[in-house]
């Protein structure tokens, strides 16, 4: 689903919500704690958004994690960034979705790499990452 389709789904939803027969009203007023009109409009979010991911897919494979992976997503001047410092993954894309897709590809690639890496050949940072990928991630689909 691309961004245009996502935006279209919001437009469709708002259009349906906007429709109501002329002689009806929604009839729900004055019911909320802190009336909507009186709540100071807040601006949610900062330049960096943190979102949890549990499932990582690419056309060739799918990996799931036992714990949520915290992905920091930010927007630069021309690119979006999706990163997780703990896993050492820094991905970019021209859109938010592209950056996430690139993040998924990297994670799947590193999972495969560290899974097959011999413990005897892994030292320092590689040992730490191999342990994370082996203990907390599992491949559930692979097309050879």
């Amino acid at each position: 689903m691309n961004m245009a389709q996502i935006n279209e789904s919001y437009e469709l939803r708002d259009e349906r919500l906007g429709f109501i027969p002329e002689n009806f009203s929604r009839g729900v007023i004055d019911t909320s704690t802190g009336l909507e009109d009186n709540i100071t409009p807040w601006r949610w979010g900062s330049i960096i958004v943190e979102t949890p991911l549990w499932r990582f897919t690419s056309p060739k494979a799918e990996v799931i994690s036992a714990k949520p992976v915290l992905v920091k997503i930010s927007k630069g001047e021309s690119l979006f960034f999706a990163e997780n410092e703990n896993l050492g993954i820094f991905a970019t894309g021209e859109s938010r979705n592209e950056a996430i897709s690139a993040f998924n590809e990297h994670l799947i690639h590193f999972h495969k790499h560290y899974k097959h890496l011999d413990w005897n050949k892994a030292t320092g940072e590689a040992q730490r990452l191999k342990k994370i990928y082996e203990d907390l991630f599992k491949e559930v689909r692979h097309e050879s």
Partner: protein
Amino acid sequence: MNEKKYKITEVYPNSPLVEVVCEVRFPGELAIECRRDEFYEKIRDRYPTILVPKAGDSLSPYRFENKDRNAEIMLAINRFSLHDKKYSGHKRFIKEFIDLFKTLYKMYSLKKLVRVGWRYINVIPFTREDGIVPLQRFISVNVNLPEGVSDQFENLVMVLISKVPNGTITTRIESIIRSDDQQEALLLDFDFALTEKIEFSRINSCVSMAHDQTRAIFENLMTDDYRQYLRGETI
């Protein structure tokens, strides 16, 4: 069963809360309008900024904002509320609310309370999975949909206003999208209103009950996977 999943005092490091509101309503009391300055004198150290309502009617509240602009009081002739955008737990918030309310109660000799409300507004950023809003990752809503209606939601908005003992719970679950960079999020808005058996002498327990009910909805909806994230147990 869910009581074991969380402690009522637990404050999540990755909390999605963007605003907490506690409010009391009462029959209109004109003294509030006539002597608003007296109330302001009592709170001006903590809430110095005055925001005057644009609409000139008595039901529109005056707002008194703190220096950091993350908490404010709203006061109209028929209601009083405390709003916090940097919530650090219910104990401190309730204490502040009760202290303020007592000041109000003594100053204007309020006769009766008709409603005590507690509201949690949460915003949870998400990334779609196969184009679908991954609702089940975050919350468990067991709705039995008829055959032909899929639970693979591309978009959703749901508002439920439910009768519960001594009050009403309003639950709003909606997918939203930020206009500047198209980040999507789930808006979870829980609002418990106690409308029966409210007494001044029990205001503390009324507010605590409103809090506990609203927190319970949040906790009962959360999945264990998402609670892990809330607790900072992430990779």
